[in-house]
């Protein structure tokens, strides 16, 4: 369509200069324009959190943020967690504790957990449960996600 804007966004450490439709959501930009399909679209209403990414260090629902709003911002997606072919300690913890089943909510969970643990590296189980409660998971019933985040916190503290 006609309303296109140029944006410049740093995603997982790499700068991208793109021209996007003004109405394009950040989640669609990441998936379609950058091929970063790890960010998933679930409810399209900002409720489920599957599309959670960090924008300038704070979690946002990328299904509600327009790509143009991310102009000059730094974005972290699930693809930015692993380094040099090595899983992030949080990813290792989710694997070890079976903190996932179908995997669809997992990228959002990982990004949210990453944010949570940066704010508080040593939370209690109750704090993790409450902190993760803004992301929905339809498979796990959350128990092993809570265990995974606690285990990930320990791994990160010991790293």
């Amino acid at each position, binding site marked *: 369509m006609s309303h296109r804007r140029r944006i410049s966004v740093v995603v997982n450490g790499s700068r991208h200069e793109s021209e996007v*439709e003004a109405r394009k959501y950040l989640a669609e930009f990441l998936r379609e324009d950058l091929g970063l*399909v790890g960010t998933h679209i679930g409810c399209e209403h900002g409720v489920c959190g599957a599309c959670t990414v960090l924008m300038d260090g704070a979690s946002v629902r990328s299904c509600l943020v327009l790509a143009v709003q991310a102009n000059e911002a730094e974005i972290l997606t699930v693809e930015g967690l692993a380094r040099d072919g090595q899983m992030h300690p949080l990813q290792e913890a989710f694997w070890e504790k079976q903190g996932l089943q*179908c995997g*669809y909510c997992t990228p959002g969970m990982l990004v949210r957990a990453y944010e949570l643990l940066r704010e508080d590296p040593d939370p209690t189980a109750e704090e993790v449960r409450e902190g993760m*409660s803004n992301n929905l998971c339809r498979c796990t019933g959350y128990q092993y996600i809570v265990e995974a985040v606690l285990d990930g916190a320990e791994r990160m503290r010991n790293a």
Partner: protein
Amino acid sequence: MTETREERKWVGKSIQRVEDPKFLLGRGGYIDDFGLEGMLHAALVRSPHAHARIKNIDVEEARRLPGVIAVVTGTEAAELCDPMPDFGPDPASHEWRCLAVDKVRNVGEGVVAVVAESRDIAEDACDLVDVEYEPLAPVVDPEAAMEEDAELVHEMVGSNVAFERNLIFGDVDRDFAEAGVVVEDRLRWRRSGGQPLETVGAVASYDPGTGMLTIHENSLSFTSYLFMLAGTLKVPSNKLDIHPHPAGGSFGSKLWAVKAAAIAGMLSKATGKPVKYIEDRVDNMTNCDHHGSDRVYYAELAATNDGTLKSLRVRVIDDYGAYMQFGVGHHGNALAQVVGPYRIGSVQYHVQAVLTNKCQQGAYRGFGSEVHNWLLERMVDLVAKELEMDPVEIRRKNFIQPDQFPYFIPDGNVYDSGDYEGVLDKALELADYDYWREEQKRLREEEGRHIGIGICTAQERSVFSATEFWFWFDEPAAPVTSTPESVTLQVDAAGNVTATLYSCAFWGNSPETMVAQLVAEEFDVQPHQVNVVYSGTSQGLPATGPGGSRTTVMLAGAVEGASQKIKEKALKIAAHLLEAAPEDLEWSDGGVAVKGSPAQRKELAEIAMSAHLFKHQLPTEIESGLAADQIYDHPYTTMPSEDRKDLGVFYPIMGHACHIPVVEVDVETGLVKFLKYAAVHDAGTLVNPRSLNGHIIGGTAQGIGTALLEEYVYDEEGQLANASYQDYLIPSAMEVPELVIGHQETPSPYTVHGIKGGGEGGRMMAPAAIASAIEDALKSLGVRVNELPATPERVLDWIEEAKGLE
């Protein structure tokens, strides 16, 4: 297989799942992550009415929008496609099509499909389509729908009661006449649904040069519905090739989700280009074809005065919505375990399937058996109340005993094995039952708090035979269906093993991990070294797909069979290489060794190298390669009798569980809070305990949703009032308590390793257990819980009603 747990190396270990790294890295490969060169995108114009005649459709403006490639109306779609696959009674009289023709029957039903260069343009074009409707009276309430003068959802059926049958097993009248006590109630189970976070989608690509239609999709049972979908799409079944992608959750709702594939396939054929159609959330909530059960029960349970349960009489009205793709198979599921774990001698089951202007029913974890569990447990609690018996004791008194298996229930199905008292005792201990009974009393007396302890002891059927879908009808009579599942095992020249699966068994469960563990058990390799892949249908073997908790049992059977074939051949090759007689050799520690002389051996890799490269050094009858297929058929199923007084064996692998939640009900707000939740399951021999635990917890979370939060609310006009996650409430981490889980392992005598299915148990138990807990909490107020979900509003209504009766 009768090996003991100690003898197993991998079956029974909670290894990390082999599926997980790709999901953790954001490389899951879901259907919406997939694309093809030159791919177009489709969107649907949806009906805003529950019930209306389509008078006229004007698509001219939409067609003129730049970027729009094709606009297809329902009438045009009916030329391009035949009706959708349908197992309902007399499908021609309530025809289901991928887009509505002449009339819309539920809000959200597709009316026009638009194909464009992007999804956004397709949606823009949808807004430009002008559909003129003539609204008809919406049919919403299932009981009102049954009245003679009700508006008809499908005129050709002649009634909104699309199917009715009254089955009687045993001497129900005598048992009721002789009973000391008969309790009766009307119960209402309202509709919820799987609501996976990923919707249903498909990418179709038609090649006019070859006539081949290739469809990528995230629906699971594609091997079984291939020929039916080919019929819908008017292509020969050998020219349709379906490729699976991981399902981002299903819970039944992607078990058989054929419409997205039909729409994408139709549009690709029409345009000659690849087309992607992915439901958005509104499509999925209003028109996914997989809403769960929606039932009204009129039930009676007869018992003697000492609490011996005698007979169950049920009339069930099931609101199927606008179509009935699976007929009343959901009630076949209920009949699989119709007497629960109890020695109830006779049953009357009268089903009335009603059509209304709602999204049609499909599958949701339990497939109707979870509703029956709830009904039966609610009625058992009512007998206990009537006789002033302890709810634990009445259950204990009526359990089928361990020495009574295999146990034939009155309708003819068999329960393979069980130890229900063992499960109950474990659950009571894990729940700290006696402590909480005391606490309940103390907190009531000292602090006026309403604590409730719930109990559910119920069955978890697994491994269906498809007879349950057709034994309802006298005609057409069909033979017993074998519902197979297949595996191919290939040992390559380096000795590495690849397992190929033929349905998309992945929907969040762990078929790859299960198969890897089973292969590791057979060949003494590391599970994470086994490669598990999914085949498309063009190279496919017979398969049915996951559903009814069959995957692990069926795959275990197939893996064992294929392994035996490979081991037999490996033994022959090793015999030649070791210059020994095959009968003097044995499989041992990942290779073949001479009996009594373990140092004389050949490793699997050495044997595989010979098999792949050096056939000419082997005896002439040995062909190159080391691979085997195994098609594993249902282990135990029999024909129903002609008079349907005996339905035959159709769901024999019978799990069991006991859930004990402790709740507190706030009588001011109606809010229910968990203080404790214990769950003990018996799914036979465990393969990966932590993985099963994950399913128990996740299933329980969905059961909590069903019991307390989730309901598709249709208003009087047939509008779905809560078609978003802002209004349809999925439990979050704050609503789901931490579960204390226990297992009992009573092996099945009919399956490899004694495994039983276990994927649905959480949701099959939790609603019954939670209803029981709420009722127990409000016992002093005289509240009866006979409707779910028990939203705060309903809880407060019950309290008010009970006060009014005092």
